[in-house]
C-alpha cells in the first residue's frame, strides 16, 4: 500500500477528514467561481452553514453541459499564474471540457496514481510502460507522474506502434503495462498473427493497469490468459482529475475510491435523489482538495453502485463496481467519448443529408467497430456511382477529423432505419459490455 495512513484509515476518521475538506472545497468553489456562486445562491445553499456530509444533498449538481458552456477556463478557481497544466477531453472545440491543475493538484494526481499502481502490485523496482496516449488526454501523463512518484522506472512510449511496444517489453524488461484493455488485446492479436516467436511468458511482464473504456470480466480473462499477467481495472475521468479516481486491488473485486480526495454519492438519475449505499445508480463526484478546477456534485453519467466491505487488501476505502453503463447516450469508442449528437452535427454539415442515421457499435476482435448508416435521399442521390462513394468518404473524413474516430459509412435506402414513436433509435450497441 502506497499510503497506508489514508488508504487504511478508520472509516469514522475518514468521514471526519472528508467533512473538513468538503467545507473548504465548497467555500473555495463558491468564493472563486462565479458559476458556483450563482448556482449555490439560486438553490439558497450557504457553504458557511455546511455542517454534515448529509447536507451535501442540498447542493446543486454540476452537469457536463455547464462545464462545456464554461469553455475554456470559466470554472477555474485560481488565477492563471497558479495553473501549471491544462488537459482537455476529446470532442470538437466547442464541446471540449477543459481542466486545469495547480502544482498541488498535479501532486495529488501523482499521489493517487502512485497508489493505483501500487494497488496492482507495483513498487519502485517495477518498469512501467505507459502506452496510453500522451497529450491533452489525461491517460498518458497521469500514469507517468504516478509511476515516477512511486519511484518506478517509466517508459513513456505513448500509444501506437505495436511492434515497438512489444520489442520494448522484451528488451527493457517492462513489468507493468498501462494502456486501454482493447489495446492490450490488440497487442496479443498482433503477436499471434505477426510475431509467432514472441512469447509473453518469457518477458518480465506481470501486470497491466487498464482503463479509459468499459471492459468486461471475459476481456480480463482473455488478457490474463493470453499475456500471462494480472489485469487490473483503473478508473478516472478528466473532469474529476484523470485516471486515479479509483482502482482495483489484489482482490480484483470492485474499485477502491480515493475518498480522501474525492467524495462519491450514487443518485437516481431520474429524480436526483441520493440512493443508499449498495444501490445502483449514477455516480456523482465532489472534489475535496482540488484547487484549480473544483468539481461539486459532478454528474458523471456512469452507472454503478458503491459499497463498503472489509477488503482483504486492508484498504478501508469505499468500493465502486466496474462501470458498465451510462445514464445518457454517450458512447465510449476506443477510449474516445462520442455523443450521437456530434455525429448528427457532422451529417448536417454535409449538404443535403438529413439526420436519418443509425450508429452501430460492435467489437471486431479487440477493437470497437463503428458503422454509421445514413439514409440516401433525392438531394444527395446522384446517378454517378463515384459521386455517391465520394459522399460516403467525405462523411468518413469529417467524422474522423471532428470526432477522432474512424467509422464506416453505409448508405442505405430511405425509411430502412427504425423510427419508433418519439425518440429515434440512434444507437445500436452490440458490444455486450
Amino acid at each position, binding site marked *: 500500500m502506497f499510503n497506508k495512513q489514508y488508504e487504511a484509515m478508520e472509516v469514522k476518521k475518514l468521514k471526519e477528514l472528508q467533512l473538513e475538506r468538503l467545507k473548504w472545497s465548497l467555500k473555495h468553489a463558491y468564493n472563486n467561481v462565479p458559476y458556483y456562486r450563482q448556482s449555490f445562491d439560486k438553490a439558497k445553499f450557504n457553504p458557511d452553514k455546511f455542517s454534515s456530509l448529509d447536507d451535501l444533498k442540498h447542493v446543486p449538481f454540476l452537469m457536463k453541459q455547464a462545464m462545456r458552456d464554461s469553455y475554456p477556463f470559466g470554472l477555474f478557481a485560481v488565477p492563471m499564474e497558479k495553473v501549471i497544466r491544462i488537459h482537455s477531453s476529446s470532442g470538437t472545440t466547442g464541446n471540449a471540457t477543459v481542466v486545469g491543475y495547480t502544482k498541488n493538484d498535479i501532486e495529488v494526481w501523482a499521489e493517487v496514481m502512485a497508489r493505483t499502481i501500487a494497488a496492482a502490485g507495483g513498487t519502485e523496482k517495477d518498469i512501467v510502460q505507459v502506452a496510453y496516449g500522451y497529450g491533452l488526454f489525461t491517460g498518458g501523463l497521469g500514469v507517468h507522474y504516478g509511476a515516477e512518484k512511486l519511484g518506478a522506472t517509466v517508459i513513456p512510449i505513448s500509444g501506437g506502434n505495436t511492434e515497438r511496444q512489444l520489442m520494448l517489453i522484451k528488451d527493457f524488461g517492462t513489468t507493468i503495462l498501462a494502456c486501454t484493455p482493447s489495446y492490450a488485446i490488440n497487442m496479443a492479436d498482433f503477436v499471434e498473427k505477426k510475431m509467432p516467436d514472441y512469447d509473453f511468458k518469457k518477458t518480465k511482464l506481470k501486470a497491466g493497469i487498464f482503463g479509459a473504456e468499459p471492459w468486461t470480466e471475459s476481456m480480463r480473462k482473455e488478457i490474463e490468459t493470453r499475456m500471462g499477467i494480472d489485469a487490473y481495472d483503473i478508473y478516472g475521468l478528466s473532469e474529476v482529475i484523470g485516471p486515479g479516481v479509483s482502482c482495483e486491488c489484489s482482490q480484483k473485486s470492485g474499485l477502491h475510491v480515493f475518498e480522501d480526495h474525492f467524495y462519491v454519492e450514487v443518485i437516481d438519475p431520474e429524480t436526483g435523489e441520493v440512493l443508499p449505499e449498495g444501490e445502483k445508480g449514477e455516480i456523482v463526484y465532489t472534489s475535496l482538495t482540488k484547487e484549480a478546477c473544483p468539481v461539486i456534485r459532478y454528474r458523471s453519467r456512469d452507472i454503478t453502485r458503491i459499497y463498503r466491505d472489509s477488503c482483504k487488501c486492508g484498504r478501508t476505502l469505499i468500493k465502486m463496481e466496474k462501470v458498465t453503463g451510462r445514464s445518457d447516450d454517450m458512447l465510449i469508442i476506443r477510449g474516445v467519448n462520442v455523443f450521437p449528437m456530434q455525429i448528427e452535427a457532422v451529417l448536417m454539415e454535409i449538404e443535403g443529408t438529413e439526420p436519418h442515421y443509425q450508429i452501430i457499435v460492435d467489437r471486431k476482435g479487440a477493437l470497437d467497430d463503428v458503422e454509421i448508416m445514413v439514409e*440516401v*435521399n*433525392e438531394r444527395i*442521390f*446522384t*446517378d*454517378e*456511382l463515384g459521386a*455517391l*462513394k465520394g459522399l460516403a468518404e467525405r462523411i468518413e473524413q469529417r467524422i474522423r477529423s471532428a470526432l477522432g474516430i474512424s467509422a464506416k459509412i*453505409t*448508405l*442505405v*435506402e*430511405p*425509411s*430502412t432505419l427504425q423510427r419508433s414513436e418519439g425518440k429515434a433509435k440512434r444507437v445500436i450497441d452490440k458490444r455486450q459490455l
Partner: protein
Amino acid sequence: MNVTQLSLFLENKPGHLQNALKVLAEEGINIMTLTIAEVADFGIVRMIVNKPQKALEVLRQNKFVCSPTDVLAIELDDKPGSLLKALQTFSKRNLNIEYMYAFTEKRGDRAVMIFKFADIEAAKKALLEEGFNVVKKIDLIGE
C-alpha cells in the same frame, strides 16, 4: 430526342431489387432495358421503361430514391467493329462516356446502345454531325 433513364438507389442486399420491380409490375410498367452499377454496399439501377413519369411517381411514393437522367440512344450496325468505330468518333470529338449499356431490343437489323455523356447536348450535336442515328424517345419507348 433525349431518352429518359431512371436511376434508382438500392442497397446491395437480397430482395431489394425485387421490391422495386414489384412496384413497377403492379403499375403495369414495362422495363425495356436495365443495368446495375454496384459497389459492395449499394448499387444504382439504371433502366429505361415505357412510362418513365409514372414509374418515377410510383417509385417515389413507395419511398425509393429515384431520379430521371437524360441519356442518348444511338443506333449502330450490328456487325463487328461498329461499336469500335463509334467510340473512335467519340474520342476524336473528346466526348467522355460516363457509362453505357446495350438496349435489349434490336431496331430492324441495327443494335441500340445507350450512352451517358457529361454534356449531352454537345454529344448529340457531334453525333448528328458525324452521321449517327440518334434514336428518338418516342421511337424507343413508344410514348
